[in-house]
């Protein structure tokens, strides 16, 4: 009797046999699935119908069940059991995930790389069954720069490099100039950046040809819009955050109304407002460029979110800071500029980074009012009669581009969060 139980259940004496048999079974199930997916050979074709597809799963489960030995003494086996094989349900999920990954690899690999085409410069080059990356290659400049004239693309590049370089100036400022850092980032930098972008990208003077904003587009427009919205919405958000915490009722309720209004409406209606309703509110004969209107609309919208983030920072400061500043005889503005805001703003940097991430993800929306940034250029390219039928490639390309940008930003904001968390 005891012998039978030993045979069915692993114990210290037969650990080795069990683990080896289990490993072999699991290995066999994996080999079966792999050969099925990659080589299209069905090792278990002798089995009837539906059992063929279930066979690797059953074999794998039995194998994992045999390998599951508590405190076997073998470190690697223990680690494996602890991580993927704690009970039957876990083992089943493990196998399902492994199998689906193996099954997905050959299909996507052959579509994206093996059968794909990238040579040539017209639709005729794409004859294979895979993706047509030629389409992306041919349209690449359009996706990046929109309808901006090809020979002037260096202007956009230069402007971006200049703006980024100016952004890093703060790191290299001399120690005695550091106190002007906030002034630089809040006032001087936006103005310089605006001038750089206006004179370089728009042109019109210094011998540069004028390019109207209707021609701007692609990924560069995404950057321009989100950049301006960020630098403008931050100071505005600060004002409303302070306003909401003010003890003057009129100012407080105006701020609350502002914040709750913008947070309550979707961005798309705000964009509609900027494009169809806002011109009605402007004086006669006063023309405002569509891009400017859109930037103003997104700025007003994001400022409300920014204000809430900053308010969170202000609220998390201990009361003692306010009391201490007041007891030194500081007034409202002195207290906020020298004591409260420097501490609160440091706290909200991760939150602001998150707001900015949301802003970048929202910019493709400007497509609905007719500004052709990346999503808009894709829609344009998709309906081009010479390039019909490549929507998939286009959207996968755009998704990858945005994913890389947003993922990098979210990782960065996560790092910031970790960095500032430990300091307090």
């Amino acid at each position, binding site marked *: 009797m005891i012998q039978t139980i030993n045979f069915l259940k692993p114990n210290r004496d037969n650990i080795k046999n069990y683990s080896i048999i289990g490993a072999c079974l699991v290995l066999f199930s994996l080999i079966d699935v792999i050969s099925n997916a990659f080589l299209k050979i069905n090792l278990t074709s002798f089995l009837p119908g539906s059992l063929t597809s279930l066979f690797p799963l059953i074999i794998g489960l039995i194998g994992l069940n045999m390998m599951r030995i508590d405190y076997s003494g073998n470190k690697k086996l223990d680690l494996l059991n602890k991580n993927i094989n704690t009970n039957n349900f876990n083992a089943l999920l493990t196998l399902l995930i492994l199998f689906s990954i193996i099954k997905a690899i050959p299909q996507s690999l052959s579509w994206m790389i093996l059968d794909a085409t990238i040579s040539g410069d017209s639709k005729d080059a794409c004859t294979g069954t895979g993706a047509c990356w030629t389409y992306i290659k041919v349209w690449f400049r359009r996706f990046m720069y929109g309808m901006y004239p090809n020979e002037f693309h260096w202007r956009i590049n230069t402007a971006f490099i200049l703006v980024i370089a100016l952004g890093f100036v703060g790191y290299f400022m001399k120690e005695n100039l550091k106190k002007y850092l906030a002034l630089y980032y809040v006032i001087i930098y936006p103005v310089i950046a605006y001038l750089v972008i206006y004179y370089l990208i728009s042109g019109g003077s210094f011998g540069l040809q004028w390019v109207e904003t209707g021609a701007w587009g692609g990924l560069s427009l995404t950057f321009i819009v989100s950049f301006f919205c960020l630098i403008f919405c931050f100071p505005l958000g600060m004002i409303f955050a302070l306003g909401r915490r003010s003890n003057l009722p009129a100012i407080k309720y105006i701020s609350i109304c502002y914040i709750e209004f913008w947070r309550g*409406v979707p961005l798309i*209606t705000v964009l509609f407002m900027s494009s169809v309703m806002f011109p009605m*509110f402007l004086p006669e004969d006063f023309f405002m460029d569509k891009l400017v209107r859109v930037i103003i609309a997104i700025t007003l919208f994001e400022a409300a979110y920014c204000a809430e983030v900053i308010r969170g920072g202000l609220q998390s400061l201990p009361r003692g800071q306010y009391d201490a500043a007041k007891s030194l005889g500081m007034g409202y503005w002195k207290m906020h500029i020298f004591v409260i805001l420097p501490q609160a703003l440091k706290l909200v940097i991760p939150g602001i980074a998150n707001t900015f991430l949301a802003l970048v993800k929202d910019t493709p929306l400007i497509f609905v009012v007719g500004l052709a940034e990346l999503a808009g250029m894709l829609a344009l390219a998709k309906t081009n009669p010479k390039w019909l039928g490549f929507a998939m490639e286009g959207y996968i390309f755009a998704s990858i581009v945005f994913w890389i940008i947003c993922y990098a930003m979210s990782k960065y904001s996560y790092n910031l969060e970790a960095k500032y968390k430990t300091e307090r």
Partner: protein
Amino acid sequence: MNNIIKRYIPQILAILFVVLIFGFLTLNAQTNMDNRGIDFGFGFLSQESSFDVQFSLIEYSGSDSYARAFLVGLLNTLLVSFISIIICTILGVIIGVARLSSNYLIKNSAAWYVEFFRNIPLLLQIFFWYYAALRALPMPEKADAWFGVTYMTVKGYYIPAMVWENLNVFLYCGLAAIIAIIVLRNYANKLRDTQGKQIPVLLYSVGLLIVLPLLSFLFGGVSLEFEIPELKKLSKISYIYEGGISLPPELIALVLALSLYTSTFVAECVRAGIEGVSKGQKEAAASVGLTPNQVLKLVIMPQALRIIIPPTTNQYLNLTKNSSLAAAIAYPDLVLVFAGTALMQTGKAIEIVSITMLTYLTISLTIAAVMNWYNKKIEIKEK
């Protein structure tokens, strides 16, 4: 005196500033509208709309009024939000729990799912599903049946329709079951508090929910039939399914994108909520002799839900607002029907955009108010 100046001057200036801005804008709008010969007013709402909407929940045709068109749009928005909220909650809870799994593969797959769908702009996801993925589906005549009676085709998803007879009796029975459950729960609570007796409330509740509606079938004259979609030939190469309900591809793309995108945020809320309950609570509950089920139901869930629900409602609100992206793929939601087509036809930009914004604002503020009330209610009352 000095204090009064300090207190009132800024407020007066702020109010003056707001009034001036609004006055300036109104004045401009007045002159602009006079010049273009447009008059301000909401009379157009009762006029005949004379445009058609492809998909609507209520009866609607071109001879109905603009107000009804507004209602059609609003209902479509609510429909897509409702379906997406249900799906994203289910997905979000599964993924959120999976992120806390002890299984290395499950944990990491869930983490990658979140990172993947969260970092792609929603508009691109909608476009991807609508223009790329759903366009690759088979034509109606080549489609295979899913679950035997439903057909997923490039023209939409066809599902059987339910044909009810005496539906109201059935609904009354359902209502009666719900009332009975509430009464039962109260009674069970009272019994537990006064005599310490436990009744398996859940079992009884499920039983009531099944038995009462079932009785209505047997004795109330309620009957249910399914109308199964059938393939019909329109012309030589064009086929269509008739009968049943057809969900347009726009709706499917929108629901897919919205629920996959929002589920990542819900998953993060769920994870944060479960992680937020300290381990000591679980151990303490176990040590006073509660069973694992009771620990989960009476100790962990009430505390985790307190952390989970507020940010999750926020995500539902975001989802509802994000459903306005439907306009980009021509799903007839509030923005497309009202701020798009109706605005194009009437030219009443100010009225229509403000009505649209106010509608969303009302939805948001209502949910926010309910949320605040709920938060106050579940707040830990410290003594």
